[in-house]
């Protein structure tokens, strides 16, 4: 296969915003195809030839993380994970798969659940340079720094993660001010989504109406079967790639098997959060004594906000070079769990773990709706798994709100 050229337009906005808006209504008008497993490695090679970077899942540090993927052999084939509050364990798929699958013990490329990383790090980088100041004889000169453009593929994006990207789009692109770093990175992205065919005990996307099936916000979406992938197109760019792959059409049997696998994910989701009127229910509980109970367990360590795919707080640090008069302003992920975030000259506004946890939870599930017309939670369960003491927000919400009735 020869590399695909999607045109050199960095501003694909004009072409695809139209197609993506059509997408949700006329989903079935986009073509579907079948990519046999044997051809999958060549597909990854093609992506690598056509883009600067292919980011996808790989096994590292005892987990499935997102990193550059040079070939299909680097994908977590045959690996899965077992998750519960405060616990994540990597396992071989064959050791735990059950009989409900169409091919039990089948080794899959995407047979895992979301892990410690989120795609946020590629759009809203954890550390990034904003501006440079240089001292001259005529005072300070200041200029914004720009990063080189990288065309990236995000491979293996799940439905909850598509929802998370859509939420950060609202924060960084359409809330009044455009973040140029986010915008540039976002506009040079090809998103290949993967439908979940299993779920972790910490997943609750069905409660947040964000999954497990990918409905919009992707260029291509795949459902993994034992012998290949059902491939669905979601945008003009996806269409271009789809055409170059020259896939055969899918059979009814394949469609059925795909549906069965996707249904398995839905069945495996057991965690629930009642989101009916959650904004008002939570905001009526600001003085609930249960916040103190949570504060006795919460370490205010900020892990939940670091792994959250929608959390967007940041701070800017001054970085000096001693050797010259150049100062760089560097933005880093920050967290509402830090005492300093609400710093005022008279002291921090939120000076207790109670008030900081309350800020996080009520922002995520309630005031976020006022700000961005959407919940800030997509039900991915990362904050539950990666909380070192295993605090489960769905349980805390249930306790907080049950005491109101």
């Amino acid at each position, binding site marked *: 296969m020869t590399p695909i050229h999607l045109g050199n337009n960095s501003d694909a906005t004009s072409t695809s915003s139209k197609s993506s808006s059509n997408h949700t209504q006329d989903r079935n008008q986009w073509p579907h195809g079948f990519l046999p497993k044997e051809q999958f490695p060549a597909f990854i090679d093609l992506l690598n030839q056509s883009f600067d970077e292919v980011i996808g899942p790989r096994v590292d540090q005892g987990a499935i993380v997102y990193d550059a993927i040079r070939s299909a052999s680097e994908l977590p084939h045959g690996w899965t994970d077992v998750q519960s509050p405060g616990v994540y364990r990597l396992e071989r798929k064959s050791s735990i798969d059950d009989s409900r699958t169409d091919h039990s013990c089948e080794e899959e490329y995407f047979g895992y659940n979301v892990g410690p990383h989120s795609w946020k790090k590629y759009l809203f980088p954890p550390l990034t340079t904003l501006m440079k100041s240089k001292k001259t004889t005529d005072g300070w000169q*200041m200029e914004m720094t720009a990063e080189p453009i990288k065309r990236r593929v995000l491979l293996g994006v799940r439905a909850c993660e598509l929802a998370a990207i859509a939420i950060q789009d609202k924060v960084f692109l359409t809330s*009044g001010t455009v973040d140029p770093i986010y915008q540039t990175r976002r506009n*040079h992205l090809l998103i290949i989504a993967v439908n979940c065919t299993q779920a972790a005990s910490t997943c609750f996307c069905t409660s947040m109406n964000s999954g497990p099936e990918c409905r919009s916000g992707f260029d291509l979406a795949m459902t993994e079967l034992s012998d290949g992938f059902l491939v669905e197109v979601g945008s003009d760019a996806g269409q271009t790639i789809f055409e170059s792959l020259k896939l055969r059409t899918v059979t009814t049997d394949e469609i059925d098997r795909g549906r069965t696998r996707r249904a398995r994910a839905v069945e495996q989701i057991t965690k629930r959060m009642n989101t009916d009127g959650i904004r008002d229910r939570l905001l009526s509980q600001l003085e609930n004594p249960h916040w103190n109970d949570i504060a006795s367990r919460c370490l205010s360590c900020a892990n939940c906000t670091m792994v959250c795919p929608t959390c967007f707080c940041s701070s800017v640090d001054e970085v000096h070079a001693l050797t010259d008069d150049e100062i760089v302003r560097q933005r880093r992920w920050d967290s509402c769990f830090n005492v300093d975030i609400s710093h005022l000259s008279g002291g921090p506004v939120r000076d207790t773990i109670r008030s900081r946890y309350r*800020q996080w939870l009520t922002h995520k599930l309630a005031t976020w709706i006022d700000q961005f017309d959407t919940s800030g939670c997509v039900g991915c369960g990362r904050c539950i798994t990666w909380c070192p003491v295993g605090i489960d927000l769905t349980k805390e919400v249930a306790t907080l709100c049950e005491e109101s009735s």
Partner: protein
Amino acid sequence: MTIAPSLSPVPQQGSWQSHPAEIVSILEEIETVSTYRMRFRDPELARSYRFKAGQFNMLYVPGCGEVAISHSGPPDSDTGDFLHTIRVVGRVTEAIRALEVGETLGVRGPFGNPWPLETYRGRGFDVFLVAGGLGLAPLRPVVYQLLKERDHYGRIGLLIGARSPSMLLYSEEIRAWESSGIEIQRTVDRADQDWHGSVGTVPLLIDRLRGVRLDRTAMFVCGPEVMMHYSAQSAIRLGLDPSAIWVSMERNMQCGFGHCGHCQWGSLFLCKDGPVVRWDSAFSKMRVRDL
């Protein structure tokens, strides 16, 4: 490629780009408080820069950091100069204090919701400004504008509170305002032997107001949170509607455009949904401790 939702054609509301500005002059006001006259180095920017009363800038000392400071000068100066009245309270303000005339610092802005003068202008409204301590600084641009557009408003009052007579900001200028028809009342927490005025907190001045036209009065309050709280309570006791009372909130503003998350207060990003907030919206949040 997957495209981000269509980008609005509206101009960028805010950016991390700071622009070098020169300190043109420094006026020592009271202890630890000085007013800085600044001008952008870029002549085009100096010419085109505009702000509204109640808005703030992010002042930047490279190597030290940024601090949010309200405008304290006239909103429509033709000179391209703008003023900031700054109290030394932390690292960045200390670093600004160390700067001399002719030196440069970085400025981003203006940010934030201004005082809602446009809501009341030309409708015969009376406007009362209530200032506690350094809270007078963000209200001074309002005074300038009210004086400039005097005919568009009815009665104009300025109620000022300070810890002591020596802590009263802009005292000389206030005497000039008084003679141009603004009703001024002052109070101090602690009097000295030369003080003949009122002693007590600012809300007391509101309690004593007479002849307030309840359906034709707006009140802008700026000062410490507790002072704003009790001032608003006094105004409501007087009969003012909560929707006619406006306060200017202080939180940790960092980006200025609602991206960094620091200044959240309930559902508001005070850097862009504030700092000026209507009392009916502020009240419910102010009642919650550590919100």
